[in-house]
């Protein structure tokens, strides 16, 4: 299949790389090539310093103290929430709930919305592209309440079977849980069109945007979904940061997910009244420093520009696809074009298990993911136990792709294939 090769980038990658000290590290004597960004991203100095400043200058628990440190930390935390809201164009900061990661976000919706809204016999529609984080919570909810889980297939290029999706939505659905971008194949789903279709069928729509928000501009009002979740650690922020966006009207009607401190307005020995949005969903001391780090990461991404980042990744994808397709014995899974995708390329080398390939790549200083990518149903659909996955971000270069390709040749030489 023909591959469009883009060669231009508008990013000043050398300048960006200077912000990421870890990229200077050496692994097995070679400068590290980090191509596992779909698992987690590296962090720029600006994020590390923003977090360090909290600890060194004004650390105190948020929403509690009536002294300056607490007030300053609370202000920084709530400013981070405002940044998240602006970043995804949420109509209100009240609709942004901080969670540890996308997984916790999906679970929040599955428990706090799902258990009161999904009943016996209801249909939950999802896809084979989902990460386990947006699959297992729904599978278990369906089991618990006696609902039906409908899993939409992909075609041989890893594109969602829209015909099947439309047919299943027409049969009725209470919820559509869908990923915006596949972590296993890089496929981007046209979530705006799909959400409109799902709403017409009466379904509530949750979008797993863990692989989309870090890489492309995401506008929740444009997508017109009902819930959207993402993780901070995949977008230059620390692990422990992430967010759920939900429509205010839905969030208002939902019961809390976790009970405890900070999520209450009044507690007596017999009853409790909940705090207002979004704090109703933020029980206990939150990972406020991580959230502040997420705010700093958003500043960084906005300064570079999401569109430029996405274009840069597509250039890298095009370059990598054309290089991999030229190597005998290499099979690429998923879309072979740069249209509607993010910077994820899954492949295998004939005769070499992905774990063996990744171990040899590691000797060459190249970090990729080998495995099932928390995507068992998708691996089963592809008919492979695992794949080798290279995932790119704003700091990756074409030279690094060449290092990966050299490592592929090295693995083939070692295995004599």
């Amino acid at each position, binding site marked *: 299949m023909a591959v469009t090769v883009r060669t231009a980038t508008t990013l000043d990658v050398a300048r960006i790389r200077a912000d990421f000290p870890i990229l200077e590290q050496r692994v097995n004597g070679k400068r590290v090539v980090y191509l596992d960004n779909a698992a987690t991203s590296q962090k720029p100095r600006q994020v590390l310093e923003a977090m360090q400043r909290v600890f060194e200058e004004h650390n105190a628990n948020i929403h509690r103290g009536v002294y300056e440190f607490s007030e300053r930390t609370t202000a920084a935390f709530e400013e981070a929430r405002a940044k998240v809201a602006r970043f995804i164009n949420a109509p209100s900061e009240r609709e942004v709930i901080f969670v540890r990661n996308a997984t916790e976000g999906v679970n929040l919706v599955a428990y706090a919305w799902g258990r009161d809204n999904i009943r016996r016999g209801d249909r939950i529609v999802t896809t084979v592209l989902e990460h386990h984080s947006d699959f297992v919570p729904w599978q278990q909810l369906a089991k618990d309440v006696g609902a039906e889980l409908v899993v939409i297939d992909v075609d041989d290029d890893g594109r969602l079977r829209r015909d099947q999706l439309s047919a299943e939505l027409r049969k009725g659905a209470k919820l559509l849980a869908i990923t915006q971008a596949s972590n296993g194949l890089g496929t981007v789903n046209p979530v705006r069109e799909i959400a409109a279709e799902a709403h017409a069928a009466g379904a509530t729509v949750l979008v797993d945007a863990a692989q989309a928000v870090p890489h492309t501009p995401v506008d929740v009002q444009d997508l017109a979904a009902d819930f959207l979740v993402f993780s901070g650690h995949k977008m230059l922020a620390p692990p422990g940061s992430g967010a759920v966006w939900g429509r205010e009207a839905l969030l208002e009607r939902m019961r809390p997910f976790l009970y405890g401190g900070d999520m209450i307005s009044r507690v007596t020995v017999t009853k409790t009244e909940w705090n207002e949005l979004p704090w109703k969903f933020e029980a206990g001391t939150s990972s406020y420093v991580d959230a502040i780090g997420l705010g700093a990461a958003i500043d960084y991404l906005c300064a570079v520009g999401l569109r430029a980042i996405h274009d840069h990744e597509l250039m890298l994808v095009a370059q990598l696809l054309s290089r991999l397709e030229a190597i005998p014995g290499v099979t690429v899974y998923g879309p072979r074009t740069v249209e509607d995708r993010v910077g994820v390329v899954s492949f295998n080398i004939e005769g*070499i*298990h*992905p*774990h*063996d390939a990744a*171990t*040899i790549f590691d*000797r060459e200083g190249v970090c990729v993911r*080998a*495995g*099932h990518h928390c995507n*068992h149903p998708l*691996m089963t659909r592809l008919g*492979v*136990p*695992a794949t080798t996955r290279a995932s790119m971000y704003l700091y990756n270069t074409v030279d690094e792709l060449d290092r990966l390709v050299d490592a592929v040749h090295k693995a083939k030489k*070692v*295995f*004599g294939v």
Partner: protein
Amino acid sequence: MDDMYRDYILDHYKNPRNFGELEGATHSYHDSNPLCGDELTMSLRIGNGHVDDVRFQGKGCAISQASASILTEEIKGKTLDEVKAIDRDQVLANLGIPISPARVKCALLSLKTLKGAAWGLTAWPGEEKK
């Protein structure tokens, strides 16, 4: 340079010894590593308390398959008690390569299936519901 992928490891991977079905097997056990998709079935024919013959079947990474191949060579002719006494250190020593922490499960799937067969297990203790 590639410590883990020495010639004899790759030779065992590409030309596994004692590979296939075992006719008249008295003991057999199958297991897998869901994390990587490695699969192994270890089959023994025990007569008079000795391993008369052994075969394994499976697919997966070079480490898991070479480990199984090497292990089958090791146990042929041994008594069942000797087989039951084989431990992880022995399997890793027989492999003779440095195994990184992330790959230990690959290297030891052979031992797990061998133990399951030798002890006549139908399920691994603690994993009965799997």
